């Protein structure tokens, strides 16, 4: 795909594509990124193929510096091991790399996220009699604690964006300013929540998530309706730059669409 005329039009981008491209753009070249499977993996691999060729991807299976040629379905695909700078035991990836503070960006998903960016991936409803039992913590609590910063990718709805998570699996900004420091969490926590509607960022003073950008065609009102708390909107609300044709083309080659 080299001829410009074969690139897809930005107008054809769907909401998930805008979300993924926006997430990819948040990853600076040369930085390290702890990558989970699904949207984070897609976004990181997109970044590596566009503006961040030296993005250093770490998967929790122990592959350091993986550069898969196709999107892995799982965090332990053979392609990851074959293309990695190094494959280390799981103990080392968590202790020597994550806990030691060597990862710049952690990417997390969420089943629920609250006003302060705390995340639930354990259970919806009562823990002992859950409405929905979710997979659980995995690497997330320590990714949220120890990465330099965290980016959350999650589709926005009132069921997902809740006033208070039913279970705090991974700490965002706790109950507000100073909580991360009090808990001894070394990273900055969630600095950006990227959804299919826009981008939320913590208010520097209150640590509450604020809508700072909406994707093309999305209104602040729609984002507020998709949020289970009274979502504040930044006075200088931006519109997310639309995906570029090349970004869309690479993304679709990764996901097999188009």
């Amino acid at each position: 795909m080299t001829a410009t005329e074969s690139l897809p039009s930005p107008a054809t981008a769907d909401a998930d594509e805008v979300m993924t491209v926006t997430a990819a753009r948040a990853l600076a070249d040369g930085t390290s990124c702890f990558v989970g499977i699904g949207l984070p993996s897609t976004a990181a691999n997109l970044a590596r193929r566009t503006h961040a060729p030296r993005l250093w991807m770490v998967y929790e299976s122990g592959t350091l510096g993986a550069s898969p040629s196709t999107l892995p379905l799982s965090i332990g695909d053979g392609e990851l091991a074959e293309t990695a700078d190094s494959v280390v035991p799981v103990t080392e990836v968590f202790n020597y790399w994550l806990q030691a503070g060597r990862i710049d960006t952690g990417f997390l998903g969420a089943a629920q996220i609250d006003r302060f960016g705390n995340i639930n991936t354990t259970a919806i409803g009562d823990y002992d009699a859950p409405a929905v039992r979710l997979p659980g913590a995995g690497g997330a609590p320590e990714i949220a604690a120890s990465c330099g910063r965290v980016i959350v990718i999650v589709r926005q709805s009132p069921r997902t964006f809740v006033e208070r998570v039913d279970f705090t699996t991974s700490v965002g900004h706790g109950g507000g300013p100073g909580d991360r420091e009090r808990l001894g969490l070394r990273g900055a926590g969630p600095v950006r929540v990227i959804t299919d509607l826009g981008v939320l960022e913590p208010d520097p003073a209150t640590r509450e998530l604020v809508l700072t950008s909406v994707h093309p065609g999305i209104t602040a009102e729609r984002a507020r309706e998709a949020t289970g708390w009274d979502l504040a909107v930044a006075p200088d609300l931006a519109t997310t730059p639309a995906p570029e044709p090349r970004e869309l083309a690479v993304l679709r080659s990764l996901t097999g669409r188009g």
Partner: protein
Amino acid sequence: MILPLDRAVAELVRDGDTVAMEGFTHLIPVEAGHEVIRQGRRDLTLVRMTPDIVYDRMIGAGCARKLVFSWGGNPGVGSLHRFRDAVGNGWPRPLELEEHSHAGMANRYAAGAAGLPFAVLRGYAGTDLVGRTPTIKPITCPFTGEELAAVPALNPDVAIVHAQRADRAGNVQMWGITGVQKEAVLAADRALVTVEEVVDELEPVPGQVVLPSRVVTAVSPVPGGARPSYAHGYYVRDNDAYRAWDAVSRDRDRFTAWLDAEVFGAGGGPGTPVAAPGGEREEQTA
């Protein structure tokens, strides 16, 4: 000691045991799990960082009393429906949970392998896991005064892993993503390793982990024994099988029919276990 799979499971895995079947997406001992189901083991405490479809099957088959884990899902697909049904509805029996994070579980195995009673990590602070999981406690650094998390060692009765090769003396060789398998084997009282093949000599391979025979109780040759997961250098992951499991496992009847046909049934594909001598199989699954 090289044993057929059914004999090895019969000798090493007992009702009520704490069993760790490890594998981080790669080299998952699926066929050994099926053999545990066939032999009707009950009241097991199943331990694993990433319980996936093989634990879903064992839970659905009623083998488990408790699950010690950090992430219970169908990797890349979604939920484990038998796990959910057991947690939510107690079917076929209630399942007690002990939840940790990956970092906590990995360090628990490492402490177990090292003969320590506990491990220390920066973890869990501020999460609701602390209140839910009694095996997380605070500990203070005697030098800096910092508070960290302590978790107790995991020392399973038996660890079961799959590897690429073993030699005739029972030394085991695995490579690719090797996860926490070494620690699980070293932490356990007994260890069963299913392998793709038994060879005369273990030719060194980059990235290999070698488990000396003295920490391996039994080796069972089970070619294809990790399917539908993969064995680096032997076969690739069958992603479609993981996706297909979602539909099969959503429904109790469909799951039970699948179990009868694929695990208890006579059929079976490349993952069918090696037959035991003297028809012992029938006796054990009766």
